[in-house]
């Protein structure tokens, strides 16, 4: 089955920048520093850059497949592995997308519960938030891309706030550079995975660009921008916190904001958490858009009903998780799947696809 997309539903290639950047930049920014510094301490910023480079490579691999096939992952799976195995793999991929979307929502609700409202109930917020996701996703990919666009532009005003902690920063914390082994760095790169997951959705929305080939450079720019922001935040964090101090901070970014004082505004982290609602909306919308689109392509049901089922499922899962341990487990679970998906599955798919492609050409 061809994933033909009508031209009126397609978007311009430059939006790939925002789609990639926005799906990578999410709730992870609030607390990724602790995870990555567990293994490699103050050298973890190198791991951020390394993972950025790896993703550039993975993006290139994805484009090598997508440009040849001019179609989405579900069709690629079907041509490479046949209908049944292909659909099974696609289903697993969609499951991963769905679970990571749900994790983002639950983690964000946890942030609200810890930082803003201790007695905040999970279900009303999840219900309202998923309703807004339905409202946006049900209007198609153009609107989802639009939300990504605004979700990237509006929070840019928060970037200067990352500079404020520099007043108390000590850049000697970063020295000596490279006093951790390569294995430690690789462990940090693994920890970084959950934070920068999201770009793999490109495999599903690729056919939605007007001239899909032209989107490649924009995805690379998007990834570069994400890497720079993460690296910048990581450096500021490591300069601001001592290495031991960082290990006891679950959300170092939020704690850093506490130092900012404006004449009309103290405790800027409240504003930032509210703004984060707008930041994570695109992540959830893209995840559910991609998941529902995949379900539609595999099971031949309408995307609207697929979306409703997925949102209902996500709502139930979100409500069932109610403590820090469970959320942490879910995060590490998603992170683990992410590692296999990125660092093993995409290169394997790349190799198998090219072998099959050559064989087909010969015959």
């Amino acid at each position, binding site marked *: 089955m061809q994933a033909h997309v009508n031209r009126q539903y397609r*978007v*311009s290639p*430059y*939006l790939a920048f925002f789609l990639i950047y926005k799906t990578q930049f999410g709730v992870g920014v609030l607390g990724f520093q602790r995870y990555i510094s567990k293994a490699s301490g103050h050298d973890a910023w190198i791991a951020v850059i390394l993972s950025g480079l790896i993703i550039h490579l993975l993006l290139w691999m994805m484009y090598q497949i997508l440009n040849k096939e001019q179609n989405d992952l579900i069709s690629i799976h079907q041509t490479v592995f046949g209908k049944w195995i292909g659909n099974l793999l696609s289903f697993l991929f969609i499951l991963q997308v769905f679970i990571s979307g749900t994790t983002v929502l639950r983690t964000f609700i946890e942030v*609200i519960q810890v930082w*803003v*409202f201790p007695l905040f109930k999970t279900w009303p*917020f999840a219900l*309202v*938030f998923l309703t*807004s996701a339905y*409202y*946006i996703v049900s*209007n198609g990919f*153009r*609107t989802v891309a*639009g*939300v990504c*666009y*605004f979700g990237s532009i509006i929070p840019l005003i928060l970037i200067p706030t990352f500079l404020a902690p520099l007043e108390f920063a000590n850049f000697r914390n970063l020295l000596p550079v490279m006093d951790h082994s390569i294995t430690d760095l690789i462990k940090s790169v693994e920890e970084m995975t959950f934070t920068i997951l999201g770009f793999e959705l490109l495999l599903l929305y690729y056919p939605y660009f007007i001239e899909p080939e032209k989107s490649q450079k924009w995805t690379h720019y998007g990834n570069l921008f994400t890497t720079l922001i993460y690296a910048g935040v990581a450096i500021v964090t490591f300069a601001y916190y001592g290495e031991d101090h960082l290990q006891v901070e679950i959300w170092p970014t939020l704690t850093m904001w506490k130092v900012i*004082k*404006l*004449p*009309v*505004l*103290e*405790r800027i982290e*409240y*504003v930032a*958490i*509210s*703004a984060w*609602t*707008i930041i994570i*909306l695109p992540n959830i919308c893209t995840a559910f858009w991609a998941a529902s689109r995949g379900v539609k392509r595999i099971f031949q049901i309408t995307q609207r009903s697929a979306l409703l089922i997925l949102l209902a499922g996500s709502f139930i899962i979100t409500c069932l998780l109610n403590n820090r341990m469970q959320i942490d487990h879910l995060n590490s679970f998603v992170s683990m799947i992410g590692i296999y998906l990125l660092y093993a599955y995409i290169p394997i798919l790349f190799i198998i696809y090219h072998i099959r492609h050559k064989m087909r050409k010969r015959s």
Partner: protein
Amino acid sequence: MIIRREGVTGIRRPRKNKQETAEPPSTWAEPFWERGDFTHTHHANATHPYWITHITSLVDTEVLHRDILPYLNKLSFPTLQEVESVLPIEEKEITDDPEKIKDLLLRGYVWIRFSDRVLEGVLARAELDKSRAVSIPQEEFSVVGPKESFVESLTTNLNMVRKRLPIKELQLQELTVGTYSKTKVAVLYIDGVANEENVNTVLQRIKAIKFYQILDSSYISQLITDNSNSIFPQMLDTERPERVAAVLAEGSIVIMVDGSPHALIAPTTLVEFFSAFEDYFINWQMASFFRIVRLFSVLFSILITPIYVAVVTYHYALIPTDLMVTLVTSRSIVPFPPILEAMILELTIELLREAGARLPTKVGQTIGIVGGIVIGTASVQAGLTSNVLLIFVALAALASFTTPVYRMGNAIRLLRFPFLLFAQLWGLIGVAIAFIFVMGHLLRLTSLGRPYLEPIYPLRLKDLRDSFIRLPFNTQSHCPAYLQTQDKQRFTPPWRQKPRDIDE
């Protein structure tokens, strides 16, 4: 002269009118319509006696007495062709089709016959087209620039537009809409500039209207708009002829309705609603500054009371200590929670606005003063509301009036209430949630199928030159991209020309 007063006019009782249309034509030879203002006169004193039939309330008596009767009295041959040739009126014809006769009589034509036993006669136009004089724009007032505004007559309005665009490419399609009102609707566009797809969409949608009465252009806008459930207007209405001329030249389509002093502009974008036409009369730095002020005042107007409610209810830690003192002193005697306080004040402002709008100007002003000063001060002194909130609400109301388009101002004022409720529910996070819904809604909206948020999304850098800021005229060399015009470039921009060297 035979005038019989029975019943009321056909226009007031359209149902009966419909029944009469079905009458067999044979009875038409008789004076067919016995109505109060229907006249059927025999002029026996003329050289060749003739009959004149018309509806007095629709016919301009001056035209009848000056341009019709003298010529008929001096006729040399009693033929209809002769009548048609001597009358100094452009629109006239000979017909015996009863339907047509009836239709033209109802549009202010005079029916001239030599015998009341036959149907065939000359129909000459003597329509009474009375409307108020062209006056100063009331809604879109401007300090500098032209001071003409549209009136209720389509002819006058079209004249004002044509005068500003004397080119043959200006096309006009006239349609009749409304089963009872038979309103004339004119669709204007410039051939070769406007996108044909847009023109066809507009014509199609207007033709598809099934409604009994069109009394104003806002009826049309509500009936053909993309999403009629949205509080945001998706068609721009204006009362300024120069704005119409300007958007026509850009490639927009303008809809004008007889009896309405407002023209509709489509397609349009959200940003257009925040640009006053006066921005083009002042230099670009000023215009850009005012536009940015307007943008911020809109944000302020929507967000300030919800933020106040959110912060005072939940996030008082946000407020620095010094400011806290001021707030606490102001709020200490108020017995209500912030949301109730805010709702009371917001509704008071709405009350004042509505009362001011419904009353005659002079009384309205008094109400404004009474409301603004007396009620405001009294409620603070009585301890019902706090000073700080009173300032915020008054400023927010003022800010909402900076929107140049009245309909948009209304939308903004209404938008504040869902924000307030969400702020009470979840504080600042609630405000963010409300914002998400508005953003999602705006992203879904279209105007004639074109994205409503353009040039912000989809991002079109060229169109940003005339959106939040207005760059000088020599940079506005292209038609806006969202209109998808046929002829894109209006003139060669100066940076394409060779720059002049020093002292040469």
